């Protein structure tokens, strides 16, 4: 499917060097890591356990942290210090959680995101997730025998800005360089599409432990284009466990249970649910702490009746995504099933019935997301393989808007816009001499601000004083390829760049990350300084190589004094790389960045002109 010919000046700086990069599926229930080795994607197993790492973190009395199976064994006996499904709390406030979930842990409400009180202190979901990511990073580094260049981390397509930012922060905290946040269904499509040389419109139906994602993608000419995505951030296999547990407790009149017993019931119900995917009946049996036993036989038919509503609930986002994409079920060539919960026969039947076709299941639904992420990580790290002549065009899942008069939302970027995307909006002052204004950015589809998620209040300062209505402030909302928002503003009549606070309140500042890292490591200062220095050196080396090759190819875009200035700065930077003054390297890097801005813009300009020329040629062929 290598149909797109791509010329990339200056991209193959070091053709034979294989950079270690991984894809990580950071799941609600399970997490796993995959990589591309010898041109083949593979999932990496842990030392004793298999490929799937249960996404469970336990803070032990001795101050250590257990992750995975070891932690899972204590989820009933030490439930307050054993955090399961932490992904559900990422970027969420206490108000966002369902009433049931709110009682699960000793939650502390904090600005932007809940915290969990454990015996190891108050933990943010970001910190808990970072523990999972650290284990996967170590697993990868020991299996691959080297330090990772970076990772692609998957998120449900339906994650909003706060949840994405939290995921990225967790990765930073785990010492991972995030090459990209990738939507899980898109990752599945990459794994699937590249495997099968597929063309046409495909849907990805991903029912995991805690989230449901549905995406419609078009695969053509080596391009993965997401047409629409929808889902339910609070629907997954856990809800099926819950439904069964409610039933089981009603059978034994056990509505008052300790948190430990309640957890044990859930664990058992999950087991029974999974068994019912291959057997017609199973006995659920839980030994309670008071010595009694809660037990009942469940048939598959009973279980299906108990969960019929949940199954039906998955079809609402399915319809919505198809409508958004202006498609009907007949247009969909195949539905890819992803996530452990799609093993339930009633889900497969519902999908088959809705689409009039058996769903596709030939890739392991547990691995497919991590494999897709690994393939993209490999490309983004610069190890493009022969068959990697493809491009991914993803979309933003939720609309971005700003608050206007009366608490209403004005949409700026509508959902399913292809990313990256930028939208500009002009504002003016309403008072004479006004020098500041606040812009409240929200995310969601509803019309009222209070029904959407607040992303933060961005403050514009430094507007030159003018008469009311005279200032013209152009605010640009840029969503990058990770789906993350940044905001920039400029006053047009004076050209003043207004200073703005671009960081939303829920994101971690660099200081906070540094603080959390310090708390986690001994000799953290020295470690961090060395790590930072190493990163600066790598970045500087990369900069020297790429600017040099750019000068070789496109030197004619500069006049002599411009070129001389850049060459002098390059020579100075090269001189610094071997040394150990991280700060000097950093400032030299920043200097070159500024100095080559114009050069970079001209080269991009040249690139697009070439693209247009090529495109006219293909026009002739039509």
């Amino acid at each position, binding site marked *: 499917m290598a149909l797109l010919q791509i010329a990339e000046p200056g991209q193959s700086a070091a053709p034979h060097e294989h950079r270690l990069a991984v894809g990580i599926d950071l799941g609600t229930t399970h997490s796993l890591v995959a990589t591309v080795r010898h041109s083949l994607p593979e999932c990496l197993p842990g030392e004793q356990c298999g490929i799937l790492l249960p996404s469970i973190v336990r803070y032990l009395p001795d101050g250590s942290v257990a992750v995975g199976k070891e932690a899972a064994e204590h989820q009933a006996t030490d439930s307050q210090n054993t955090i399961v499904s932490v992904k559900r709390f990422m970027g969420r406030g206490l108000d966002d959680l369902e009433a049931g979930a709110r009682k699960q842990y000793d939650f502390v409400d904090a600005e932007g995101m809940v915290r969990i009180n454990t015996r190891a202190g108050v933990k943010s979901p970001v910190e808990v997730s970072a523990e999972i990511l650290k284990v996967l990073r170590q697993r990868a580094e020991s299996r691959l025998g080297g330090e990772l260049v970076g990772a692609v981390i998957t998120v449900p397509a339906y994650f909003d800005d706060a949840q994405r930012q939290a995921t990225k922060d967790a990765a930073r905290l785990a010492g991972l360089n995030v090459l990209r946040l990738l939507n899980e269904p898109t990752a599945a499509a990459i794994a699937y599409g590249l495997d099968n040389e597929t063309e046409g419109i495909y849907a990805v139906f991903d029912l995991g432990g805690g989230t449901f994602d549905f995406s419609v993608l078009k695969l053509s000419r080596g391009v993965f284009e997401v047409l629409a995505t929808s889902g339910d951030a609070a629907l997954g296999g856990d809800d099926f466990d819950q439904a069964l547990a409610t039933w089981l407790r009603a059978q034994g009149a056990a509505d008052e249970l300790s948190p430990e017993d309640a957890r044990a019931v859930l664990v058992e119900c999950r087991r029974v649910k999974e068994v019912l995917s291959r057997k017609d009946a199973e006995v659920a049996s839980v030994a309670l702490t008071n010595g009694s036993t809660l037990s009942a036989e469940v048939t598959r038919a009973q279980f299906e009746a108990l969960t019929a509503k949940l199954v039906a609930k998955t079809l609402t986002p399915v319809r919505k995504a198809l409508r958004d994409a202006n498609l009907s079920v007949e247009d969909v060539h195949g539905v890819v099933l992803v996530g452990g919960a799609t093993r339930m026969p009633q889900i497969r039947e519902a999908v088959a019935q809705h689409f009039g076709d058996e769903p596709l299941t030939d890739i392991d639904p547990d691995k497919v997301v991590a494999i897709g992420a690994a393939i993209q990580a490999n490309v983004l790290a610069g190890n493009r393989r022969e068959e990697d002549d493809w*491009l991914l065009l993803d979309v933003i899942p939720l609309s971005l808007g700003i608050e206007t008069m009366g608490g209403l939302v004005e949409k700026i970027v509508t959902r399913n816009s292809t990313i990256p995307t930028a939208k500009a909006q002009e504002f003016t002052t309403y008072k004479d001499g006004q020098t500041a204004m606040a812009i409240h950015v929200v995310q969601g589809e509803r019309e009222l601000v209070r029904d959407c998620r607040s992303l933060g209040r961005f403050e514009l300062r430094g507007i030159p004083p003018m008469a009311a209505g005279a200032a013209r402030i152009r605010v640009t909302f840029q969503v990058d390829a990770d789906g993350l928002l940044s905001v920039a503003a400029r006053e047009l009549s004076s050209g003043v760049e207004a200073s703005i606070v671009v960081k939303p309140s829920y994101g971690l500042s660099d200081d906070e990350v540094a603080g959390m890292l310090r708390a986690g490591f001994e000799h953290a200062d020295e470690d961090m300084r060395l790590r930072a220095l190493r990163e600066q050196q790598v970045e500087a080396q990369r900069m020297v190589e790429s600017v040099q090759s750019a000068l070789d190819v496109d030197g004619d875009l500069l006049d002599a004094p411009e070129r001389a200035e850049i060459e002098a700065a390059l020579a100075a930077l090269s001189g610094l790389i071997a040394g150990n003054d991280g700060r000097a390297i950093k400032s030299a890097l920043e200097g070159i960045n500024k100095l080559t801005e114009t050069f970079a813009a001209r080269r*991009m300009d040249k690139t697009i002109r070439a693209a247009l020329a090529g495109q006219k040629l293909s026009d002739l062929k039509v």
Partner: protein
Amino acid sequence: MNASNAFGDYFALFGLPRRFAVDPTVLESAYLDVQAKIHPDRFSHMPENERRVAMQWASHANEGYRVLRRAVPRARYLLHLAGIDPQIESNTAMPADFLMRQMLLREAVEEAQDDADVEALDGLLRELRRDARAMEQQLAGDFDEHGDLIAATARVRQLMFLERLQEDIGSALETLEN
């Protein structure tokens, strides 16, 4: 030099003639070609600086594709290029027969909504789409054959009216399904 000024208009960006009628497959293939060359993923291990420029170009191309792909934004863009503001908000004058039909349709939508009649709503949606397609044909005539921008402006406003109604049906369907 400012990169975004070097783009030219969206038609130029995709190498298309500046006219209303656009072959969707030609537009799509032009768009994909442009993205294949400029998408930030093509420059993922280049310095931040150039990746940012690539991101801005890619954003611009995405916006251009969004505008040219569908009839209303494309028509409005053509009017904008010709220096005409279609006065979408302030000017609501429409031909009487058009308004009559719209009122009837709107009543039918409300009725179907009250009856929670998903099939009727789907049917109305199909009908409106047919109307909209016919109007797009006429717009192509206004712009490309007659160069009649006054007529085009009036028709764009009507087409937007139709789209608004389609959106309302969409959200009615969404509400019913939830």
